[in-house]
């Protein structure tokens, strides 16, 4: 199965990198939407749906925390699993983002295998 993915990050190079690493890892991507912050991500979701969202935390206009809150408030969006990608690997930050509704968390730096593993865990993909 191939997945519809949204990558939300204010860095164009980071968005491109994440997309490339997904391909390198063998994670099957059907389509990939990209947004520069949470507000842009929400606007895109009004037009198209996705199977999983990967989001940064520190972004202008609407950061990752507010984006997660808005997704949780929205009946149609709260079922979409969100994986946070961040430079912050501290336990406090991970717990905070999970409390806000994130289903997964991956700290930079990460390997292609680690990214695929977290995406598949969150999506409930069985490797058996």
């Amino acid at each position: 199965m191939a997945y519809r993915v949204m990558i939300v990050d204010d860095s164009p190079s980071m968005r491109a990198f994440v997309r490339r690493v997904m391909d390198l890892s063998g994670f099957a991507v059907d389509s990939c939407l990209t947004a520069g912050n949470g507000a842009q991500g929400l606007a895109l979701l009004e037009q198209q749906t996705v199977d999983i969202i990967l989001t940064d935390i520190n972004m202008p206009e609407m950061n990752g925390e507010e984006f997660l809150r808005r997704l949780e408030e929205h009946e149609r969006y709260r079922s979409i699993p969100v994986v946070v990608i961040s430079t912050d690997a501290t336990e406090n930050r991970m717990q905070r983002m999970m409390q806000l509704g994130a289903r997964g968390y991956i700290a930079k730096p990460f390997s292609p295998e680690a990214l695929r593993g977290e995406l598949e865990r969150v999506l409930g993909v069985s490797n058996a």
Partner: protein
Amino acid sequence: MPDLEVAESLLAAASDVLETMFFSSVVGEAPVSAEPFASAVGARLEFSGARAGAFAVRLTEDAARTVAANFLAEETDEPSPAQVQEVIGELANMMCGSVLSRLDRGAHFDLGTPVIVDAAALGADPEAVSRAFDIGDGEVAVFLWMDGRP
């Protein structure tokens, strides 16, 4: 926390980030020169939380181009100066987050936005813990300033 322990975490974090995300390997350590590189790119960000301070990275121009090209997967075209700067900002952000979480995984830190700085201003600084190393295509130096460091 002893400077040696901080310096080891700094090197481990920088090596891990370079190898995992930028496909560049540390091939050897170098002394941190007091003199800035003749031609270099640098980025700096401040952090607050459990510890406050700043982190900076300085790369020779060749090293910066290689790191940016690897990150962007540019196989034929040279990355533009703007792309190089954006990637070096990302590099600084990742290295800073990685070293702080190595120093205190249970703590809370807020990282500022990386800014490109005049790399000529980044030389050996007795107030900073620093390490420099060779990545084959040039040299990288990293600097960590922490408030309250003994």
